């Protein structure tokens, strides 16, 4: 086991370095002069040179990379070109927002997917199963941006107008915020909201939008796994021995049916970090995805690079954890 852990850890380090190298080279190849962007539009070539030197951009690429990795090893992601903010601070501020969205969304999608998936599997081809499958089809097909815009219009804007399409009239009220984010820990100076209630209220629509697609996928996955396990010999044996149906489902079916789901869940949580970009953009959540996109448009590559490196780190750690967990659960993995 120790050798396996060491091997996985070493691979994680190699993978991380490879990601940083590829990302760094991609940004280097983009034909935009960051020194020009940082120096300002009317800067003279001499001024641009000064800025290039200050930003370490006048050295060969390998030296820039070594400098970058050296800083990285000291836990320093560098500074933004456009605002000179320390990128560690940028990430520190954005990561909890993305985590709020992804973790909350993931809990919601599992809360939707498990009961529907299991129920559909227990009553295959019933009306409820067919209805669930329509939900699955719609959930997988609908684009999250469209869904987000419609949700914020219907549940954010329409209630405040007191009228729907000019046909239905009702007293205007605030249901959900159209966009924005409130800190879980409380309102910072200048923020009009904060604390657990405001935090959750601002995230209900993003969580729902974010969760729908994944929930639909997981309903299908859970349904298929459950149907498969229901037909296993050990389930038949348990029933034949007179075990109560609820006990069969809970102890024999679900436990086995959920194993592949847990695997997929571990992987999807990491991938969902990338999927969160669209939700963050529509709902104005200044998370990692939003930060990366904005920095890309501003040619603020250190910030983009910082977000990519951080996200890669999280994905690698998540994968490593899943690998180690698996090795612990199933000894055959270690041997292979």
């Amino acid at each position: 086991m120790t050798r396996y852990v060491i091997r996985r850890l070493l691979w994680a380090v190699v993978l991380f370095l490879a990601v940083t190298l590829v990302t760094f080279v991609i940004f280097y190849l983009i034909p935009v002069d960051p020194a020009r962007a940082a120096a300002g539009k009317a800067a003279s070539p001499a001024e641009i040179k000064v800025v290039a030197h200050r930003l370490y951009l006048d050295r060969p690429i390998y030296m820039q990379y070594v400098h970058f990795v050296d800083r990285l090893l000291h836990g320093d992601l560098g500074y933004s070109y456009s605002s000179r903010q320390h990128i560690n601070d940028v990430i520190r501020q954005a990561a909890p927002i993305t985590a709020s969205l992804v973790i909350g969304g993931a809990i919601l999608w599992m809360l939707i997917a498990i009961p529907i998936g299991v129920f559909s599997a227990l009553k295959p081809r019933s009306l409820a199963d067919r209805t669930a499958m329509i939900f699955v089809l719609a959930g997988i097909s609908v684009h999250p941006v469209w869904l987000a815009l419609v949700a914020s219009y219907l549940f954010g804007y329409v209630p405040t107008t007191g009228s729907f399409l000019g046909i239905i009239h009702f007293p205007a009220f605030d249901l959900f915020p159209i966009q924005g984010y409130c800190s879980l820990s409380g309102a910072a100076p200048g923020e009009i909201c904060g604390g657990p209630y405001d935090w959750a209220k601002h995230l209900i629509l993003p969580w729902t939008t974010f969760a729908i697609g994944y929930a639909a996928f997981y309903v299908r996955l859970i349904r298929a796994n459950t149907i498969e396990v229901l037909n296993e010999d050990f389930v038949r044996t348990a029933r034949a021995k007179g075990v109560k149906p609820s006990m069969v489902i809970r102890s024999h079916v679900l436990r086995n049916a959920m194993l592949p789901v847990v695997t997929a869940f571990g992987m999807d949580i990491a991938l969902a970090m990338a999927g969160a970009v669209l939700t963050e953009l529509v709902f104005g959540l200044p998370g990692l995805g939003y930060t990366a996109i904005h920095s890309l448009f501003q040619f603020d590559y250190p910030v983009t690079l910082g977000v990519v490196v951080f996200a890669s780190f999280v994905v690698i750690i998540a994968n490593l954890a899943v690998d180690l967990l698996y090795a612990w659960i199933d000894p055959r993995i270690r041997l292979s």
Partner: protein
Amino acid sequence: MRRRGFWVALAALTVGVVLLAAGCGSSSSNNSSGAGGSSTSIPPHQTGGTITVALSGNVDYLDPALAYYQSTWQIEYSTCVKLTNYKDLPGDAGHVIYPEAASALPTVSSDGLTYTYTVPSGRFKFNTGEPVTAQSFQHALERDLNPTQASYFGSVFLKPVIAGAATFKGKPGEHVSGITVSGDQLIIKLVTPDAGLISKLTTPFACSVSKDTPIDSKGVHAPAGAGPYYVASYTPNRSIVLKKNPNWTDAAGYHRPAYADEIDYTSLTENTDQGTLQIRNGQIDYSPDALAPAQYFQLNKEFGPKGTWSGGYQRFFITPGAIVSYLALNVTRPAFSNPLVRQAVNYAIDRPAISQTSGYGASIPAEKYLPPQIAGSAQEKVVYPVNGPDLTKAKALMQQAGVTTPITAVLYTCNQPPCPDRAAVIQANLKAIGINVVVKQFDRGVQFGKEGTKGEPFDIADEGWIADYYDAYDFLNILLDGSNLPATNGNDFSYINDPTLNKAMEAANKLTGDARNNAYGAIATGLKEPGGLAPWAPRSFGTNIDFFGPKVGCQVNQGSYGMALNSFCIRS
């Protein structure tokens, strides 16, 4: 005719607002200004309260030495006191420089090398109670010039002209030899005459700073303010809080109000579609940019000067910005080496059609080199057609040029909307006079870099320029002086290098007042008139778009920096 109408309206607006300002000051009475670019009246309003603002994206800095975005200049207009400033008046009146912390415009030595400002101590005070003095400005300019502070404006616009700036290292106790204080006088010595200095020192880069403001290359987050408001707090990417300066007295008598107690930038990451909805329903009170361009037409219809919404007052404002958009015609390439062909392009393009591709209200068709905010613009004559192409004239010029058509011309443009649409219109326009345009699209940053590289094979560059400061030098000298064309990172995308033009611009920069305005106006006109060099085909001016929630009133669209935040009040 349309342009004349515009100027008549602008003049009426100016007169109206001047009368308003003189008549009512900051009172709460109902007075009509007849303005189009600003709110039409000072409505009944409450004193105090909080106004919330949304921005699409973060600001860059709030440190006067570093702030450069339009949104931060808007904030600094309301948090700063400068030696000279623009009044809180819309239109032309808002483009005139007046003394603010200085008791008068500076006295300039006969050789144009020494500027002396008198700054009466304590006339203005920072929110901390510290008086604004000549030292406050000495410190501000030295921060701009400090290599550690790394200010764009200091290094590009002040360092080349202020004596001792080039050798200034910013060590503790060190001063720039060309910036001295004697009593209440601030004396600035130059190494070369620069009549644009007054304009430069009217930008937020020359905002007075407290003596305690440190040198910080990352920018001070909440510098003390001596204007109507000050920055109480700033959390990057999240919030900015502006509070009323308790020591604000409007000492210069510019009728600069400060109605609301607080102006909160509540979220700096607004999605534009959603931002528009939030302002519509009053969840947010104001945004200068978190608006969806596709909705400008509808917003203007509902909330514009003749809006149909039930409240009746204007909430949506479109006003010209100090932005010129143009096609740079590369004179070093065979396609446009003949000035008559370049003139022909200017007559062939359909400016209104090109502007329409940007969406409703996003640009104003124009053929001037200098936007209306820039002194000299009024003196620049209209030569080219603004309401549509004049193909007869364009074809005649092509014939006169004696070139063999079709000519092939490569157009560099960006790959984001509306650039591709604009390119299609230009392609169709120039096809009519025998110029086949080959469009090459790039990411905006890539396009800018390529166009600034000498020898890059393009004939037309689809470009624009936003003022660094409100002076013709920043448009004409910066963009058309080819005497020192760099191999890379240039700004003269037409690559024009005409000794006569260079000399004329250099001479104009030594003039002041009307002589300066007339000279720059004449240079711009000369580029367009028959026989002119026509290095560009100017096509439009940019605009500022502002949208307000139902509770905000008293808006003053300050001629130079857009909506004056300090003018906003909460309707009662």
